[in-house]
């Protein structure tokens, strides 16, 4: 085959900044004194609580049930007593209902014994059910319930599973360490997914800046399956689903459609490992691997963190904040959400905690747009951010719909390259919020 460049068009090259935690092996931290588990940690309806204040729970117990198919249950990530079910700061910036558990200090944190059926004996439907019961959601950030992706509608012909190990966000090394330290788990998860979807072909895309991860995944490749590893050009946002599909298969997901419309299911390596864990140990998704990094943290590292750990305690375990810590971001610095409080819990979908220093967050001066066109050259979905930005600034929100505002992934490439420092991506977030409000108003009036 001709040496086709394994990448997509446009995009940007931010500094990788991964050296802080690249060499840090994954470590486990002591359990915190309190765990806070929001009922909404996923895309879809919030879960329905099954416990009440005062109930004793054991690690791994289901404490909230999924509300319908596009929803996910919540499990206790530590043994202890339910303190309350109340509003608590959520990483999205609002207050949401959450189950607070006082962790029992003297507990061995052992889960209840359980029967783990062998996955090969299960039908696809039963596997989907087990994955939903395990509370598995996309661990790459979007937290879309994984079992929904595993049960495509009958008319969708899926021919390829793509495993996303790009980790194109600067600073983060979560997926990197999952691949280099638990490659067998990734392969087992993939095997189960291939069995469930009845798909014969799988591709694992990894950016070239993680040679040891590529090496580890290659060394453990199963010989009986058509699974291939593809080192990809280091470019942001290579890990965006649509860009990854484009890079590996040269297929373009139609505007407004999903990967399954072009016959592909994309899963993050973390979700893959989480599926494997359900069938290895029977434990649901109650902990995840998180990179805690940035110039604002004393001792950055990669950790196994019980879901629901408060970010403040996690940072404390990393030696605390430095003098010039200024902004805490969940996820990577390009698309991550800023946090206003140290009480916010780590959710299933939090890939990393990046603490930026005062130097990195220094406000920079904005200039008028000089129409250089750099944003058009950066936009991976071929929008015209310059025009969209002018519309947004003028408050012409409804006009932006025709200019494809909903195709924007909010990847931030345009803001990153803009020499006039116009907050384009930020403006688009505002625009979309305004549009949603307008829609809500219209449907209320109708």
């Amino acid at each position: 085959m001709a040496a086709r460049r394994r990448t997509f068009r446009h995009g940007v090259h931010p500094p990788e900044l991964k050296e802080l935690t690249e060499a840090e092996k994954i470590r486990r931290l002591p359990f915190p004194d309190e765990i806070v588990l929001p009922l909404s940690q996923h895309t879809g309806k919030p879960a329905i609580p099954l416990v009440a204040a005062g109930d004793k729970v054991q690690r791994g117990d289901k404490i909230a049930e999924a509300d319908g198919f596009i929803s996910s249950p919540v499990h206790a990530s530590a043994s202890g007593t339910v303190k309350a079910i109340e509003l608590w700061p959520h990483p999205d910036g609002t207050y949401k209902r959450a189950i607070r558990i006082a962790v029992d200090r003297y507990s061995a944190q052992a889960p209840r014994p359980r029967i783990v059926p062998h996955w090969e004996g299960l039908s696809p439907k039963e596997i989907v059910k087990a994955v939903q019961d395990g509370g598995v959601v996309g661990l790459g950030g979007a937290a879309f319930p994984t079992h929904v992706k595993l049960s495509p509608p009958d008319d969708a012909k899926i021919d390829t599973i793509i495993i996303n190990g790009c980790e194109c966000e600067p600073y983060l090394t979560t997926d990197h360490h999952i691949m280099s330290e638990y490659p067998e788990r990734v392969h087992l998860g993939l095997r189960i997914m291939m069995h469930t979807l009845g798909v014969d072909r799988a591709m694992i895309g990894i950016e070239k800046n993680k040679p040891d991860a590529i090496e580890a995944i290659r060394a453990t490749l199963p010989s009986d399956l058509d699974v291939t590893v593809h080192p990809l050009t280091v470019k942001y946002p290579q890990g965006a689903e649509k860009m990854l599909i484009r890079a590996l298969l040269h297929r373009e997901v139609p505007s407004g459609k999903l990967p399954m419309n072009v016959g592909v299911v994309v899963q993050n390596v973390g979700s893959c490992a989480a599926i494997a864990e359900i069938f290895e140990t029977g434990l649901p998704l109650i902990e995840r691997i998180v990179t805690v990094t940035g110039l604002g943290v004393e001792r950055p590292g990669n950790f196994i963190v019980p879901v629901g750990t408060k970010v403040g305690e996690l940072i404390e375990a990393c030696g605390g904040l430095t003098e010039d810590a200024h902004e805490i971001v969940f996820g990577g610095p390009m698309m991550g959400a800023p946090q206003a409080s140290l009480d916010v819990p780590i959710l299933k979908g939090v890939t990393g905690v990046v603490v930026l220093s005062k130097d990195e967050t220094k406000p920079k001066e904005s200039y008028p747009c000089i129409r250089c066109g750099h944003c058009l050259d950066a936009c991976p979905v071929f929008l015209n951010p310059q025009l969209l930005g002018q519309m947004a600034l003028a408050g012409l929100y409804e006009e932006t719909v025709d200019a494809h505002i909903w195709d924007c992934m909010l990847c931030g490439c345009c803001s990153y390259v803009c020499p006039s420092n116009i907050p384009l991506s930020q403006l688009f977030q505002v625009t979309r919020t305004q549009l949603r409000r307008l829609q809500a108003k219209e449907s209320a009036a109708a």
Partner: protein
Amino acid sequence: MSDPRFLVTASPHLKGPATTPVIMWNVVGSLVPIIAAAGFFFGVGALLVVASATAGAVITERVLGKKGSLLDGSALITGLLLGLTLPPGFPLWMAFLGGFFGIAFGKILFGGLGQNMFNPALLGRAFLQAAFPVAITTWPERAGGFWHINAENLSLPFMSAGETDTVTGATPLGQMKFEGLGTDTMDLLLGSISGSAGETSALLITLCGVYLAARNFLNWRIPVSIFISVAVLTALVHFLDSSYPTPTFMLFSGGLMLGAWYMATDMVTSPVTNKGCWLFGAGVGALVVIIRLWGGLPEGVMYAILFMNALVPYLNRWTQPKVFGTRTREATS
């Protein structure tokens, strides 16, 4: 419960290194060798012309522009470029007036940086061409060493300089147009010809332009498409009737190099899309050839660029990028 220690801003939280002042000051820096060459070829008079055009532009920006807008360097570029397109023996007061007009009417009136439709430097020059047609087409013969200043340079506002001792010469384009004479390509490349202060050395301008293109401070598609368009059209005409000039002569004479590398690539007044830039450059090239070969003037770069500037909004509209996922269904292999 939000913690006042922490900043909360929308993503992305990283910012690339390029800034508008960095771009502008790099352009200024890349003009330094060209200004030095103007001094080398035409003496201190040419430097004074550039200086007074720049003074006109900068002072106007300072007085009429937004507070602090001088720091972005764009007014300085306008002044320098205008000065470089003027004859070395041009009266200084006229150069100053051109700088004022370019900034005041070409930029401030539209709303400042980023809002203007036309290249301010060229608008200033177009004004001067209309107001002082004789002065702007008087090309002094290089003579008298570096410290020699032409008498016209120092003429007082609205006064005729009277009888002067300046020996005038013709530019290569003028010779071609009115006498049918060609010029040695080597002279055109190096710049030892008569012409505007900063337009004579095609080689030097290209080097400076390539530097800017390599750092992505100008869109290389614009100069490249202008050159292709001029070369192809001229070659065609030359092939049909060899009394017309050759492509090499057309490319390296007059203001084409400065226009293609510095004027047409002005980000504000060129298209934002790459496809638009190709069309823009092709249009500029075609108009240059038409004006030079069949128009009344020997040189047409200025009008060609100004005309295409007016088309930029349409070029942008016609060449909007096709959004990912709406293009023709690609082979789903």
